């Protein structure tokens, strides 16, 4: 069963679509990077998955259950970090943890106190008196200590310093390995996530362009380079994502199904960051125009 599945999911705000026709299947025990520019619909997608925004179209499922139903079963499986990091500012950190403990049967208090101690966040100070970064850490701790099967983290690294980012990535990897957690992290900067993710969802202009295993995404994109003066015709069977001309060189990022053997192009394997930027720059071809890849062969785990 997919940890998170969207089918034709869409959200309209007035006449504008915040997210349109979004479909993907995220298998369990993955760390998915949800990347896209600001306003691409990342938060909308996560909020719909957490059951606090109602889809205008389509359906979203968490381990087969609709988060829109707001049942205890589905709520227990979701750990949601809102973009605004809401916390009770009049509470002491201790009381915030007590709140989590009382409302969550799987609460891991020792782990929560461990995280905060490692970050030097005093548990006897008021949440409202903490710095923005510390508040973000407390909010993250609330999500992690709940021990959900699916973590939905909206811009989790945004307010964190580089050391704290490193620490968070380590914690997330640990929880995937130890607790079989599935993680969705959103960011507008792919470099934050490239080191730990193994699944990529690229959103731009309210559309999903790519939603697949990292390995497949890397394998199915190639950067073709040739001299600008005598650029040869593109090899057959490739789909152009983005083209950049400079005076001397033409770089074309393409999506491929077969290896490119055309000797007139220099073929390079692009980095994830290059792929993401290519999609974001050109608004890219829509995923379905390429023929969506089946998910059958990817290693899924029923939970």
């Amino acid at each position, binding site marked *: 069963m997919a940890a998170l599945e969207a089918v034709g999911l869409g959200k309209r705000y007035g006449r504008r679509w915040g997210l349109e026709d979004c479909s993907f299947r995220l298998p369990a025990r993955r760390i998915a990077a949800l990347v896209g520019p600001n306003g691409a619909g990342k938060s909308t997608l996560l*909020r719909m998955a*957490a*059951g*606090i*925004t*109602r889809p205008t179209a389509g359906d979203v499922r968490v381990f087969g259950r609709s988060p829109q139903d*707001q*049942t*205890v079963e589905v*709520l*227990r499986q*979701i*750990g*949601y970090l*809102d973009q*605004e990091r*809401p*916390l*009770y*500012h*009049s*509470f002491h950190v201790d*009381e915030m943890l*007590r*709140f*989590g403990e*009382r*409302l*969550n*049967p*799987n609460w891991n208090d020792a782990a929560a106190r461990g995280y905060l101690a490692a970050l030097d966040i005093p548990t006897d100070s008021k949440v409202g008196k903490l710095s923005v970064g510390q508040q973000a850490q407390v*909010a993250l701790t*609330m999500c992690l200590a*709940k021990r959900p099967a699916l973590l939905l983290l909206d811009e989790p690294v945004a307010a964190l310093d580089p050391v704290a980012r490193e620490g968070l990535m380590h914690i997330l990897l640990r929880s995937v390995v130890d607790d079989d957690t599935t993680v969705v992290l959103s960011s507008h900067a792919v470099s934050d996530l490239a080191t730990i993710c193994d699944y990529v969802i690229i959103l731009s202009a309210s559309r999903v362009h790519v939603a697949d295993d990292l390995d497949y995404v890397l394998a199915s994109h190639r950067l073709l380079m040739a001299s600008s003066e005598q650029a040869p015709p593109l090899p057959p069977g490739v789909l152009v994502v983005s083209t950049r001309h400079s005076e001397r060189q033409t770089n074309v990022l393409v999506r491929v199904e077969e290896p490119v053997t055309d000797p007139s192009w220099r073929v390079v394997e692009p980095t994830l960051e290059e792929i993401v930027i290519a999609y974001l720059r050109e608004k890219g071809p829509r995923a379905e125009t390429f023929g969506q890849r089946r998910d059958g062969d990817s290693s899924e785990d029923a939970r």
Partner: protein
Amino acid sequence: MIWATWRMHRSIFIASIAAAIALAVWLAITGGMEEHAWTIFTSHHCSLNYPGSSAICMSSLSGADSFSTVNAALCGALPALLGLVLGVPLVAGEIQQRTNRLAWTQSITRTRWLLTKIGVGALFTAAIVGALAPLFWWWTDAAQRSSHIQPANFDISGFVGVAYALFAFMLGVALGALIRRAGWAFAACVPIFALVRIGIRLYIRPGLIPPTTVSVSANTPVGNSDWYLNAGFVPLGRSTPAPGQAWSSYNLVVENCQGAGYGTQKAAHSAIYCEKANHLHYVMQFQPPSHFWALQGAESALFLFLAGVLLGLTVLAVRRWRT
């Protein structure tokens, strides 16, 4: 969740207790002064009709009356204000600070979250207003206000204040959940609460339990302890005017029959003669003091019913709430 509710709204809860204690102290002091003034008034055999007969009667009466209006307003306003102040931020405050997104993604359903918060808030509201009720009662007696069935006293006597407070509380919770902004919700609640309270007092309470009707001669004085509702000529065999007729509808009939100088000894015909000639009798309709507890129960039930309707609305609104 019970602890969390208390912790979340602790400052408002504590401020409410402080306000209730302040009011209690104020009532005890001013009520004591009024009681003392009445004692002097009575011991000097003063009369309400001739308070000017001596300086001591004048001064004791003004002392006895000095806090009547203020205290009645305070006692009347407190349950409503307390209910609104506790109710409005219960849901609206969380939505405004986005903490609802935190609370509604824990392992507890929204309905349970809401019902726990409402339960704690409602119990607290009822407890404070209930604790003040005996003091209010003592004060209305100490200030020698008229009978408890009279509207000015009824509202602040007995247990009906608890029902008002719970209705105000649920109105605050419901409008807070629907409007999602505490300030606007509060502004909307005040006139709605006032309209409902005044509307029920004017149009529903008089007939909430069947009033007592007596057939009397036209110049019978109204009893001081009864809550007088209506009086007038009505057709024989009826205790109220015929459908479509007002209480004053038959006055003209009797006046015309009596001729010039009606209502006095000089009239051509006596009132009794004209009543009989027109098949009318004169009735007075009132709620006697013996109806006090039944009327308190009926009006409380009505307000609790309205609070229940608001509770249902709030549950629906919160369950359906999405960004």
